[in-house]
């Protein structure tokens, strides 16, 4: 083996080539690499006991890693900061070179030699693996933190006050304007005046005096030409309008002077319609969700009676906190991309692996949502380890069909 594995494994830092502990152990098991510690070669048993721990890669994670590598996949450690957000993807930014963190330092002594027998590289470790483990994990900054969290450290024990404090901040200010009394001139109507009266003093800022406004110049800019339609177009429009009642030709609507009166009119009409409804249904606290004649399509009807709304993975994500128990371990790339695989620009992985076991809990919706959010557009697969047997599961986002034709 000529060192083909450098194409997909390992990384360079400060001029030297390093391997991750799981990669080194896998290569040892394949018989491609010998690892020396203090001038003596490590056996595979030593490798398992030294390289695998809860700080680096656990035994379960290594078993999944090995399983996938043996099948030919390219497996790299997952780096949360390497996931581009939806916004970044929209902007289509070129992927920046993110620095990978090394967890095991080895001094590479000899360059790759071209022999057919066994060793291709000999590497020396300078000190124990576990002494050098400095795993730092970067979580993507949660930009949508709610406001009150900023005050949390000061007020943790005053829970009630905290709740009370929340309200004034999140409450929107009551509008200062009474829109029902302000009338807006209709500049688009045919019968318009060239001059507008000055607005009421209270609507203007202090010390601002506005006289009558001459809007003739502006009116000239408005396109008031009547639309000239061809005969076919007019016919088409007549067909469309046959069943449509123009709101403006409604006498009652014309009598309304502003929006408030219009909404009152609509409410009145609705009330009139409701008078036909049976009392025993509509006069109680719980009323039916819909009434006959209200909907024109199945979809509208299903929308109205659908109390349980279906949710997707991407809803409510801003409120999720990262979980300690469920973490994505690896990025997996397909085997047929090995020839073009570049470590600096690996591209989008085929899937991301989260390793768990049958002894642990089944991932709940929170975990599934949080992981799929962390992984953005790459699907997440759960690799369940059961004493050597590995099964792969994934959750698919599915929407129940609501249109009935």
């Amino acid at each position, binding site marked *: 083996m000529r060192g083909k594995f450098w194409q997909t494994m390992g990384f360079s830092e400060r001029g030297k080539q390093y391997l991750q502990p799981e990669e080194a152990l*896998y290569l*040892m*098991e*394949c*018989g491609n690499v*010998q690892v020396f*510690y*203090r*001038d*003596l*070669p*490590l*056996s*595979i*048993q*030593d490798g*398992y*006991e030294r390289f*695998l*721990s*809860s700080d680096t890669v*656990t*035994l379960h994670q290594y*078993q999944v890693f*090995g*399983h996938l590598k*043996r*099948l*030919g996949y390219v497996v790299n450690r997952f780096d949360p900061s390497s996931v581009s957000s939806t916004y970044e993807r929209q902007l289509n930014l070129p992927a920046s070179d993110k620095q990978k963190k090394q967890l095991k330092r080895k001094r590479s002594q*000899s360059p790759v*030699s071209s*022999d*057919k*027998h*066994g*060793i291709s590289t000999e590497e020396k470790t300078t000190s*124990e693996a*576990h002494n050098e483990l400095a795993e730092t994990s970067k979580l993507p900054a949660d930009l949508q933190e709610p406001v009150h969290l900023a005050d949390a450290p000061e007020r943790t024990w005053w829970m009630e006050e905290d709740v009370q404090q929340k309200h004034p901040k999140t409450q929107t200010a009551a509008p200062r304007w009474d829109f029902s009394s302000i009338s807006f001139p209709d500049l688009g109507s045919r019968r318009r005046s060239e001059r507008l009266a000055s607005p009421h003093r209270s609507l203007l800022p202090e010390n601002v005096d506005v006289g009558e406004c001459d809007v003739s110049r502006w009116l000239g800019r408005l396109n008031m030409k009547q639309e000239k339609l061809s005969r076919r177009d007019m016919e088409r429009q007549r067909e469309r309008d046959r069943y449509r009642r123009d709101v403006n030709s409604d006498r009652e609507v014309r009598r309304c002077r502003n929006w408030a009166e219009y909404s009152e009119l609509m409410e009145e009409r609705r009330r009139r319609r409701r008078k036909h409804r049976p009392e025993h249904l509509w006069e109680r606290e719980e009323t039916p969700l819909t009434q006959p004649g209200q909907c024109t399509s199945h979809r509208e009807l299903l929308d109205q009676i659908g109390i349980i709304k279906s949710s997707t993975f991407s809803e409510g994500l801003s409120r999720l906190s990262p979980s300690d128990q469920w973490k994505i371990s690896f990025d997996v790339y397909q085997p047929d991309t090995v020839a073009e695989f570049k470590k600096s620009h690996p591209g989008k992985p085929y899937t991301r692996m989260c390793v768990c*076991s*049958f002894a642990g809990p089944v991932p709940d919706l929170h975990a599934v949502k949080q992981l799929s959010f962390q992984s953005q557009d790459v699907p997440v697969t759960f690799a*369940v380890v*059961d*004493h*050597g*047997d590995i*099964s792969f599961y994934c959750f698919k986002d599915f929407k129940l069909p609501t249109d009935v034709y």
Partner: protein
Amino acid sequence: MDGDPAVMKVPRSSSVEVKEDMDTKSEKQATRDALIDISFCGSTPMLWKVSDMKKCRSEGVIGALVGSLARQPRQNVRLGRPLELRPEEALLLLEKEKSTAAVRLDTQDCEDEEAHSEAVRLYEAGLESSYQEQCVLALEDKKKTLNRVMNEKENGTEGSGSAVRERLEALDQSFSFPWSAMAVQLCTARSGFSHCPEERSFHSTDCPMPRDEHLNTRFSVYRDLRNKGYYLTSAGKFGGDFLVYPGDPLRFHAHYIALCVSLDEEMPVCDILAIARLGSNVKKTVLLCSPQEGDVVYSSLQWSSMV
């Protein structure tokens, strides 16, 4: 590239030295040799030596192979050493006193400088002798190939055979076997030539495997079924705790899926239905096992409407 240390060839002189050191420990070794060495990777018990694995199998403990197979590392159908043991299996071996369990201490790493440099020297001596042997073998191999070529050529055309003969004669002088081309053996189990970290054997109370209620339940069931002569392996994919075989798993299909529940644990009917359905689909009887005052009570579920 695996192998027991016994397979590695050592020059006779150094092996005698090693034996003298071991003389005083020989008696202890004799009894210890009959025991299986369980070493831990984190909290998972594992067996590394082939002899240990054979002894373990003869006890009826199956375990699962989880490492790459040395001859064919790039496939998942057949895996090789180490043999991963379930915590119940390790506990059984410890209880029957058929094994010792040892944990590698993280802190020390053979502080003894002299012993370490001795080990390095032995290793390098072994490497050197292996190199010499391989030189000889490689030369013989090359000669054979050239002879074969020469014979073939003589049978064919004349004249070209002479060039080959000349090469053959020159071979003895000019043949060189580079050090980097040497085949090296990578040990699977920890061999005597590597530095030996301090190993501490411990009582079962100390063990790194976390013992909780569920493990105790499972262990009682495992022990009971094993004493009855059944062989058990893990059954995560079947939704149970164990798969129960009437004989060696290599010879039989599993007859039962064992699910360990404690007597006071409440089980929702949906779960019972689910496991019964599963069992009938795979044509295995589901056993609900509960330890009760030293004995184990079994209830079997069979779906009678499925034919």
